[in-house]
């Protein structure tokens, strides 16, 4: 995606800006925005300018204050200090409704959509106008065509892929004729091909004069798409950059204040006997909109990292719960640990056999939110002598928590801090650290670096590599393809509950995996691949970048 003709976007933007009038009045200007939460300065004297038709990146690590700043622009939060100018006029944005009135649209990272009603109905809910479904459907169709976002307004939302759901969100915003569109990490749920399609759409939107604020921590994307970038670090502007000129390393340095860390890895030397084995696992989902797993088989050997790629919502949640033992199946042999049947064992019994697991949900599943870090250590590490004769030895839990905090550089007030008080990234470091410190024989990790900053993500990836090289079997389920290519020795793809054959990392590439993620790859593997066109609709074909306009 990095080789896209960026010049075109910049040209269009410049053209649009030119059309808007010779005197370049910024569409949006922030001056000295500050916002303080108890104990945290979220935004510190942030100033920012977005011209009409400009695609402006707001870049920063997690916790750098991007979300707070966007909430202030969108009226969901009030700044403590500072001014906002809209088309050169000072404005107050007390509510999201006021923001929409001005022409600000926002596409959130986590969709707010109703699964059990149609696309058009989902859009009708958010549009401030009389309810007229047929007319709205026609407009949705027209709009989605114009921007290359194919969408059938009559379809039930629950049947849509994640990429399609995002289109619903975007169309919903575009219907309001926004003059500034804010996109919060919009590519985290897309295949590489779908990202390209999205970028094309965004360039068209910008070319029509709409300004875009593009929030992300993915440097390559920003370099591919954006005209300008404002980099935030610890709530303050660390600098501006021209992403077309600046290298990723320069942007990363601005973002983190340090050089981009690189992971070290030795070649994998997997042992011949598999440690985790899954054999023709067939399971229906407990969630009515969930994905059934069909004939899933794979193995992970000690000493290697295996990755499972896929767009979210293709059965990863179900697979993770089945591997961890949170869900069991009666067919004992469907999952084997060290050659022993384990599919019927619950999470505790599997952990007794050396399995550790990091879930994608942190608060409430990986940790108890209101418990302290040391109490949360007991959750999975109680096997390490924290319980004697049924009684807790809290000093041991305390020591364990402190060791994890130190070894994985978890930023917190100490082992007594409640899990809820940690930022997402630090909490993830704690959870991953807690599981790795167990020295597991098998580690299953779901979305290891989801929402994490560059440094934290690199630290976790390195820790996973190191663990595997100490002859643990590591399985990583992730939606971030770059990550899988960085750390995995073999990669499999999950699509609609089916798993592709595994591919050695050196023998595949992002394009091939991307096609598989969209269900497009003709897979020769063991008769369980899928054929192009199977179970696919027009939307997904476009999603995969095939047959596009």
């Amino acid at each position, binding site marked *: 995606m990095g080789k896209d003709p960026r010049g075109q976007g910049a040209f269009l933007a410049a053209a649009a800006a030119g059309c808007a009038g010779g005197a370049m009045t910024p569409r949006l200007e922030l001056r000295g925005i500050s916002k303080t*939460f*108890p*104990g945290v300065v979220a935004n510190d004297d942030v100033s920012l300018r977005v011209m009409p038709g400009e695609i402006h990146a707001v870049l920063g690590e997690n916790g750098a204050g991007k979300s707070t700043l966007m909430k202030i622009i969108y009226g969901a939060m*009030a700044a*403590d200090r500072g001014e906002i100018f809209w088309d050169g006029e000072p404005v107050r944005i007390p509510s999201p409704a006021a923001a929409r009135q001005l022409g600000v649209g926002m596409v959130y990272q986590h969709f707010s959509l109703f699964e059990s009603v149609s696309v058009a109905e989902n859009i009708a809910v958010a549009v401030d106008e009389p309810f007229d479904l047929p007319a709205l459907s026609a407009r949705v169709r027209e709009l989605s065509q114009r921007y290359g976002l194919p969408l059938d307004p009559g379809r039930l939302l629950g049947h849509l892929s994640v990429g399609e759901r995002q289109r619903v969100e975007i169309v919903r915003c575009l219907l309001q004729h926004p003059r500034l569109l804010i996109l919060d990490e919009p590519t985290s749920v897309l295949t590489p091909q779908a990202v390209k399609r999205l970028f094309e759409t965004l360039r068209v939107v910008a070319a029509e004069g709409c300004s875009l604020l593009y929030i992300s921590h993915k440097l390559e994307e920003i370099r591919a798409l954006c005209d300008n970038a404002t980099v935030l670090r610890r709530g303050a502007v660390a600098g501006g950059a021209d992403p077309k000129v600046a290298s990723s390393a320069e942007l990363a340095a601005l973002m983190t204040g340090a050089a981009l860390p690189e992971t070290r890895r030795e070649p994998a030397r997997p042992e011949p006997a598999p440690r985790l084995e899954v054999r023709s696992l067939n399971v229906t989902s407990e969630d009515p909109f969930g994905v059934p797993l069909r004939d899933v088989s794979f193995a992970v050997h000690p000493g290697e990292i295996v990755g499972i790629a896929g767009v979210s919502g293709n059965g990863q949640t179900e697979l993770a719960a089945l591997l*961890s*033992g*949170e869900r069991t199946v009666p067919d004992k042999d469907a999952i084997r640990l060290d050659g022993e049947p384990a599919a019927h064992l*619950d*999470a*505790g*019994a*599997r*952990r007794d056999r050396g399995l550790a*697991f990091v*879930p994608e*949900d942190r608060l*409430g*599943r*990986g*940790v*108890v*939110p*209101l*418990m302290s870090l040391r*109490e949360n250590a*007991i*959750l*999975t590490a*109680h096997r390490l002598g924290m*319980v004697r004769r*049924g*009684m*807790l030895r*809290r000093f041991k839990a305390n020591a364990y928590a402190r060791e994890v905090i130190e070894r994985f550089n978890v930023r917190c007030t100490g082992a007594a801090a*409640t899990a*809820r*008080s940690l930022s997402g990234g630090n909490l993830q470091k704690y959870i991953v650290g807690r599981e790795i410190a167990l020295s597991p024989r098998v580690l299953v990790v779901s979305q290891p670096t989801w929402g994490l900053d560059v440094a934290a993500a690199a630290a976790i990836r390195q820790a996973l590599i190191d663990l595997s090289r100490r002859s643990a079997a590591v399985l990583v389920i992730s939606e971030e393809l770059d990550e899988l290519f960085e750390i995995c020795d073999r990669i499999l793809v999950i699509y609609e509950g089916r798993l592709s054959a595994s591919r050695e990392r050196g023998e595949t590439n992002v394009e091939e995996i991307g096609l598989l993620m969209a269900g497009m790859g003709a897979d020769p593997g063991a008769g369980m691949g899928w054929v192009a066109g199977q179970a696919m609709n027009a939307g997904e074909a476009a999603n995969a970048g095939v047959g596009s306009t």
Partner: protein
Amino acid sequence: MRLHFEPRPTPSFAMQVLAPVAALGLTVAVGCVLFALLDLDPIETLRIFFVRPLSSANGVSEWLLKASPLILIGLGLAVGFRANVWNIGAEGMFVIGAICACGPALAFGEGGHVWLLPLMALAGAAGGVAWAAVPAFLRVRFNANEILVTLMLNYVAILLLGWLVRGPWRDPYGFNYPQTAIFGPSALFDPLVGGYRVNTSIFITLAVVAAAWVFIQWSFAGYRMTVGGAAPAAARFAGFRESRAIWLGLLIGGGCAGLAGMMEAAGPLGQLSPTISPGYGFAAIIVAFIGRLHPFGIVLGGLLLSLLYMGGESAQIMLKLPAALTRTFQGMLLFFLLAADFMIYYRPRLAGRR
């Protein structure tokens, strides 16, 4: 300017302590309004309600006597509540405990035996446990809602008691009153101080307070239950079985309530009658929550609720106020407590221009 609430980053410790105090204050305040509407002098009425009952040695004795079963039941319930096991059948378990303790007492009659009292305690606790096993089994095996099952079993237990004292266990020399014979001396707890009703069973309650504290704070089983209540998905993640938490939560609650029923029968009552409980099993729910499901808090909660019972009686006698007043106060207290609890996790903020 508009008032709204936002979540606190960490729960406020100050509010955890203040919430029960604020709830009590609001209850008293609304109580005063209530008294004023009844044409009573609020200050004087409050004095009769809260001060007069404790102004004599006998009053203190009665205070402790009533607090003891409330605390004991509340401790048992709190263990379940912490694991999201909603046992509201303590009233029935209390009654069954009293019935089971009564069996050996009646069998031995006047004669008695040194081991009779421990036997009764064991029978009472076992009865409560058995009664609680019914909803536990139904919940674990058939996912039957334990709230409904425990609630309905209350009525079964009370009707069983009514049948026993009117039928097979009726005192043949009791002038046909629906009550059993009076227990022999060896089936009764000794008074703590001669002349007063408060008895040695209070030590059982104290021992259970300590045991509950150890269980909740220091045992792995207690930890697992707390995790299950606070974050069920985390308990599944860690492999803590929900069924174990349900069994333990209900059985411990039943055992404590049954033991409290035995202590009541072998203490101030000395026999069974159709109305052995003034609603201890329900009031203990309030006690558990006022005490923040913490053993030491529950001791304070039990003392407070006991005082409310006595104040209600005192108000009935002195002011001819209806007995329902006690329940009204209990209800208000729980209502305000739950409202005040909100402030532990949220804080008010005035939204407006800055």
